[in-house]
């Protein structure tokens, strides 16, 4: 290793030799950096899981445009939209069809007595074109009143039992005073605001939520005719509809806005965002502490080198060498442990805490950068001092 580094660097690998000389300190430094990495990975994992789950319900629909109340930030909050808006929208050239979407929440008391919270998405089951194929195949089952498809990824649910569900072997449960029959399942997965999802017909929805009326859905989904520019159609709709009452967006825009709202204005999102910031800061402090202590401990030796005619770039070279070695040595165990923690979190919470390709690269580069910057700051003292004052 020493010989390889010597060849690579074209000089003695002093940083490496320095690290190797004190193995206890090296182990502590590697553990510190691994810990900093784990901290950041876990916070990022949870934050990205939140971001992902916010988008999930939007991915169930196959629609171009969504009309929501002006005060609605998510699928569930805000006022209702009068169904009359869908008729108005239909008058705009390029709008092919419109579908009211109802959203609510029910409790599902499972066989084992535990209660989970399901977000209900309800629509006219004859409009299969508005949902993704997985649901489209099963939506005909919802033509019967008091039937529902439930999310087999629902947090805490008995997945073995849910896997057996079919029209011939349905599940039944009671909620809001009605008995629902579940002839099939869908796969979505819970998030921070609900444990899972349930899809029903609009008729079933209105029976479950007696205070809701058919004339006031939560949102209206639109499909455009082929050949029409969606953005142009949206412009037309915005001109037609009062913007103090409703907002017209593409489905993707609405999903993105929901994500931004939930991550920057809602407590959960803020807490996890804050967690990432804290993780990064704690990581930076650990790394800075490590590198600056190391520089301080070798100041006498560096001063000697300086007296011999070595310039600041030489010391930066040593520090970068150390930073790179520590970053690599700390990253590998950090990544492995984080991946294990992701799996534990995943199975414990049902949240999609998953590693993607970009995150390790970002964390690794961030570690190298913070190690290097910390080292560079720590060597500043060396740059300004007379060598004779450092012995």
């Amino acid at each position, binding site marked *: 290793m020493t010989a390889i580094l010597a060849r690579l660097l074209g000089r003695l690998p*002093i940083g490496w030799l320095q690290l190797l000389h004190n193995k206890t300190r090296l182990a502590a430094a590697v553990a510190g950096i691994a810990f900093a990495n784990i901290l950041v990975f876990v916070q990022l994992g949870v934050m990205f899981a939140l971001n992902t789950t916010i988008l999930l319900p939007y991915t169930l629909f196959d629609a171009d445009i969504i009309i929501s109340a002006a005060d609605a930030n998510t699928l569930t909050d805000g006022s209702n939209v009068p169904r009359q808006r869908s008729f108005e929208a239909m008058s705009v050239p390029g709008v092919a069809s419109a579908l009211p979407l109802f959203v609510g929440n029910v409790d599902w008391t499972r066989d084992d007595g535990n209660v989970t919270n399901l977000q209900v998405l309800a629509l006219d089951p004859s409009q299969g074109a508005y949902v993704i194929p997985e649901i489209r195949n099963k939506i005909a089952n919802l033509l019967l009143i008091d039937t529902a498809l439930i999310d087999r990824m629902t947090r805490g649910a008995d997945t073995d039992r849910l896997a057996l569900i079919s029209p011939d072997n349905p599940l039944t449960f009671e909620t809001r005073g009605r008995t629902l029959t579940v002839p099939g399942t869908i796969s979505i997965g819970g998030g921070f605001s609900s444990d899972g999802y349930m899809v029903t017909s609009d008729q079933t929805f209105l029976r479950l939520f007696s205070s809701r009326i058919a004339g006031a859905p939560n949102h209206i989904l639109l499909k455009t005719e082929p050949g029409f520019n969606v953005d142009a159609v949206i412009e037309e709709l915005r001109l037609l509809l009062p913007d103090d009452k409703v907002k017209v967006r593409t489905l993707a825009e609405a999903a993105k806005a929901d994500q931004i709202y939930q991550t920057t204005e809602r407590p959960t999102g803020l807490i996890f965002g804050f967690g990432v910031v804290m993780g990064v800061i704690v990581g930076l402090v650990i790394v800075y502490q490590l590198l600056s202590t190391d520089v301080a401990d070798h100041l006498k030796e560096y001063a000697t080198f300086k*007296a*011999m*005619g070595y310039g600041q770039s030489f010391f930066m070279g040593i520090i970068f060498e150390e930073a790179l070695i520590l970053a690599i040595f700390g990253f590998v165990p950090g990544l492995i442990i984080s991946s294990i923690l992701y799996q534990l979190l995943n199975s414990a919470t049902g949240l999609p805490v998953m590693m993607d390709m970009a995150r390790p690269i970002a964390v690794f580069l961030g570690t190298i950068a913070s190690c290097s910057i910390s080292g560079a700051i720590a060597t500043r003292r060396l740059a300004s001092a*007379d060598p004779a004052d450092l012995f």
Partner: protein
Amino acid sequence: MTGAAFPIVTQGLNHWFGVGEARKQAIFDVNLSIEAGKLTVLMGPSGSGKTTLLTLIGCLRDVQDGSVHLLGQELYGASEADLVLARRKLGFIFQAHNLHESLTALQNVRVGLEVHGASLSGKRSQFEAASAHLLGLLGLKDRIHYLPGNLSGGQKQRVAIARALVGNPRIIFADEPTAALDKESGTHVVRLLKQLGEQRGTTTVMVTHDNRILEMADRIITLEEGRIVDDIPVAS
């Protein structure tokens, strides 16, 4: 006075330590011309300013007042880059050995060569051989792969001497280099330094109290309370 005959010339050199109330002058109006190829010894009681003077003329301290001409270059107001280059022409042997604890004896000496990078005529692969050879001359042939922690005080000092000499410096500054050495190896080291002076014209400025070394000196300068009080050329 040319840089060649007098590699070190100081004029009106003053130096202070501390700031404000605590400001205290350590060097007073030192005017000095040191001849090339000679062994000049600096003497004086503890605290008289020997180390301070040595570090001032050796580019290790900023010159605050007065002038230091080193190898034809003015150090007063010199840029950091110029100082870095100037230091490469010098060899320093410190009062404490100042070896790098993580590097072996051989590696410590090699660092003294690597500072010259590729500009040195020798190739990098020859650095090791040259370093080992010098350590051999200083009686450390079978200790070259030892870490400083496993060497005696005298052995460490000899490694530090090898490190200072290995780059063929024009001037060697030595601050009590023989303090940790026994009588015999102390004399051996000084003889080696004198030999270098004769063969290569290396100038040596050495702080010492050692009587045996005084006998070998070409010139003895005595400091007291930051002033030169005595300056004797010794006829050889």
